């Protein structure tokens, strides 16, 4: 088979290039490297790959928890801070600070704080008589630490978008409801939530995407460990591409991420549109 000329790929979008490379597998020699067509073999290999399957599981588990947690907390914060008095504005600014810190630096600082022996978090826990926790060094706790760090960093950002949505809701609606004898829960359920639906859909889709592509805290702190407990698909794809030089397998994983992400976003659109 003739080697496919590299020029052919220049100018095609990255995702298409990924697709092309996925259906061509490598037969690398150090001189005159060439690639051959293998059909769907890259995908078939993945299905039987225990490391990939574990990585898929970790990614899904992470997203199953991190997205509802972040969205619920961001909405709650936005509701608490939805007022324009001076003290609330000062408080809002304080909560926004994590947005200004790079995630890489935040991860390093959290890494110090979560140190199992001399970390700040363990010192604070010991004030309440709680024994030292292993945190990032434990295969059962590490993923939760990643959730903590990513949420600490991302929460304020989603909160701001919710706040913008809340401030759009006309005050008269609440006044009218209160005159009719509605309590605050009924106001939230009957006015706030329905009018926030468009904002909610945006936050849901954008947050899910961001968390499916979450990479920095894992790369900085755990490298997918301990015992692959934080080895999300993005990290596995990175390792295959840049540690093991297996670009085709890495791009196959990226394509899988893309397909999963598109299906989840499709479902989210359908659910929130259908109930309108």
């Amino acid at each position: 088979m003739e080697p496919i000329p590299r020029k052919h790929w220049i100018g095609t979008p990255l995702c298409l290039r990924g697709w092309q490379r996925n259906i061509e597998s490598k037969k690398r020699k150090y001189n005159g490297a060439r690639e051959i067509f293998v059909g769907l073999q890259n995908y078939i290999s993945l299905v039987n790959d225990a490391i990939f399957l574990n990585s898929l599981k970790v990614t899904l588990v992470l997203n199953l928890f991190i997205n509802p947690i972040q969205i619920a907390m961001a909405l709650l914060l936005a509701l608490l801070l939805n007022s324009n008095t001076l003290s609330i504005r000062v408080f809002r600014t304080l909560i926004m600070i994590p947005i200004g810190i790079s995630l890489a630096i935040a991860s390093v600082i959290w890494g110090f704080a979560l140190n199992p022996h001399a970390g700040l978090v363990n010192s604070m826990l010991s004030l309440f008589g709680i024994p030292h926790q292993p945190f990032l060094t434990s295969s059962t706790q590490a993923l939760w630490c990643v959730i903590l760090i990513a949420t600490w960093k991302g929460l304020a950002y989603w909160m701001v978008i919710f706040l913008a949505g809340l401030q759009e809701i006309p005050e008269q609606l609440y006044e009218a409801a209160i005159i009719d004898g509605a309590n605050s829960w009924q106001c939230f359920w009957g006015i706030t939530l329905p009018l926030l639906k468009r904002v909610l859909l945006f936050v849901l889709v954008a947050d899910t995407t961001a968390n499916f592509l979450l990479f920095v805290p894992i790369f900085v702190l755990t490298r997918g460990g301990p015992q692959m407990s934080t080895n999300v698909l993005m990290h596995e794809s990175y390792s295959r591409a840049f540690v093991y030089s297996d670009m085709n397998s890495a791009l196959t994983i990226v394509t899988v991420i893309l397909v999963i992400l598109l299906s989840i976003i499709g479902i989210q659109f359908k659910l929130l549109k259908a109930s309108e």
Partner: protein
Amino acid sequence: MENFILFPWETSTQVLFYNKDLFRRAGVPEPPMDVTKRLTWEEVVEIARKVQAVANEGKPTTEFWGFTFDQVSRLYQIQALPESLGGGSGVGPDGLTFSGYMNNEAWVKAMQFYYDLFNTWQISPKGLTPEETPTLFSSGKVGIFVGGTWNISMFMAAEGLEWGMAPHPYFEGGEVMTPTGSWHLGINPKSKHVEQAVRFAKFLALNDELMRDWFRKIGQLVANKVMIDVIKEDPMYGGSPTIFTERWFFTS
């Protein structure tokens, strides 16, 4: 010129660094620099436990540690353990087979030792990256640090740190195995400026005076014989080049 060419530049070896102050407090004699009297891993563990217990005044540690590797969880550093027990490199002769090579008896024993350092004996801190371990030693919190010679300049600059060096340990009854690696000045034959690059590489790598200063300031072993002169003159190296040169001749 058709081939990729390299000039030898730096080389390295792994040695045992120890904190003289913590050793003194624990009443442990300083290990000799002599390669024929190197410590065994069994002795290292025993010393580390003693040093750690005395430094922390018998309490569970959050501050002082008996032992740490430089490059924790990297094969480069850890491979010497199974190799010392006769377990081989962990890879089969075809370069692709791991089963039977990375899980043979010696490898299991070596990994058990590595596990015990952190969990059973608890003399090594968990959750550190290879970037953090040298600073832990240079801040005086570690009794024994087994690591690369590139750390020497950092330890020399650390204020109040009294430290010494000894040869890399081995398992009792096992073989002496020390990790090593080297650095080179590479010249790409496809470059437009091969001639200039060769001249520059010669200026660096074949310049005795420059290499002598480089070794004195950086501490990293250099692939040049002037290193031996510096080691013989400088009391820090105990006047004995053997601890470095046993590996030096292999890599440069």
